[in-house]
């Protein structure tokens, strides 16, 4: 779908992406502490950015969901934290290869498996991974809120990442 937006400025494809992603972006932003009004406005902005930056989308480097997550995250930093997050420079990776459909497919399948593995994490690990991505709380603030010792929080996050790695290897 993003490819149709990227290559043909296809508005129907954009509308389909909007219907699928905008409500999830809104949910993600509200989970991160935005009000419904702010989340709605930011979800709109994220979708508009997707349209404007579609030429930068490279399916061999990120799937649609991953790419949209990075746009939504950046919007969240502007809206909620009013902070800056410099991006790394894309240093040349050697001679630019022709975009490879096989690579894109493989990445999509791996990302699918990763999403399944995230869904299958033990409840306690999943919860802390979610908090680590969504909430603007430091580990020690999470410790104060949940009553869990700091070491437990860190080790559960580590366990979750180890488990994901194991599933992916």
């Amino acid at each position, binding site marked *: 779908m993003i490819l149709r937006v990227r290559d043909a400025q296809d508005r129907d494809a954009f509308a389909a992406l909007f219907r699928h992603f905008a409500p999830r972006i809104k949910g993600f932003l509200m989970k991160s502490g935005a009000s*419904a009004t702010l989340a709605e406005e930011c979800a709109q902005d994220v979708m508009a950015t997707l349209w404007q930056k579609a030429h930068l989308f490279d399916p061999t480097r990120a799937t649609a969901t991953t790419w949209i997550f990075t746009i939504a995250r950046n919007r969240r930093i502007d809206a909620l934290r009013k902070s800056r997050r*410099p991006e790394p420079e894309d240093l040349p990776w050697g001679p630019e290869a022709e975009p490879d459909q096989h690579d894109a497919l493989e990445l999509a399948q791996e990302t699918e498996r990763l999403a399944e593995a995230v869904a299958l994490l033990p409840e306690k690990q999943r919860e802390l991974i979610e908090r680590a991505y969504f909430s603007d709380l430091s580990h020690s603030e999470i410790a104060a809120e949940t009553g869990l010792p700091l070491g437990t929080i860190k080790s559960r996050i580590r366990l979750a990442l180890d488990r994901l790695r194991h599933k992916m290897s």
Partner: protein
Amino acid sequence: MTIRHHISDQLLLGYSAGLLPEAFNLVIAVHLSMCDECKARLGAFDAVGGSLMGACDAVAMADDSLAAALARLDQPAAAPPPRRLSSSKSMPAPLVDYIGGDLASVKWRSLGMGVRQAILPTDKTASARLLYIPAGQKVPDHGHRGTELTLVLQGAFRDETDRFGPGDLEIADEELNHQPIAEAGQDCICLAATDAPLRFSNLLPRLAQPFFKI
């Protein structure tokens, strides 16, 4: 350059989630610009973020929101600021942006013993600075109240834990009390960030600390 000391999972997750102080983001962005391995790991953390977002409960958008979004598509996009300054392997673009030029345009302040620093403009949640340590010179013995990230741009230093060369990132926490020494042969330039003031072990640098903003 062979990088041996990389970004920890915890910091990479924080950078992917976008929840780190600006000064830490800067150090990490510069390391990522030099390190394909960490860049690939970041891709995995972004993918985890994507799956969590994809699994979020959808919250219905307002009825007219799609129409409003479609109407916006014809508006011209704001042009991104051009990257006018040239970068290099040891001075990647994010750093050049914060300095506003190359190493020659850094406004150094002396800390004594030939050691120099330049504070970079970031928000106040943490501070970032460039450090210039002459070859063979010691940095005063210090501990940390919070986390200190030190990324080598040029030369190398050693401390109690290991040797750090170009591209290497040292992550020091409250438990580490260390005395970095620049290696002989080449002056060492580092980019460092702390989320709390350093704690020097002897009296003189402690007096100097509020003054020099380290």
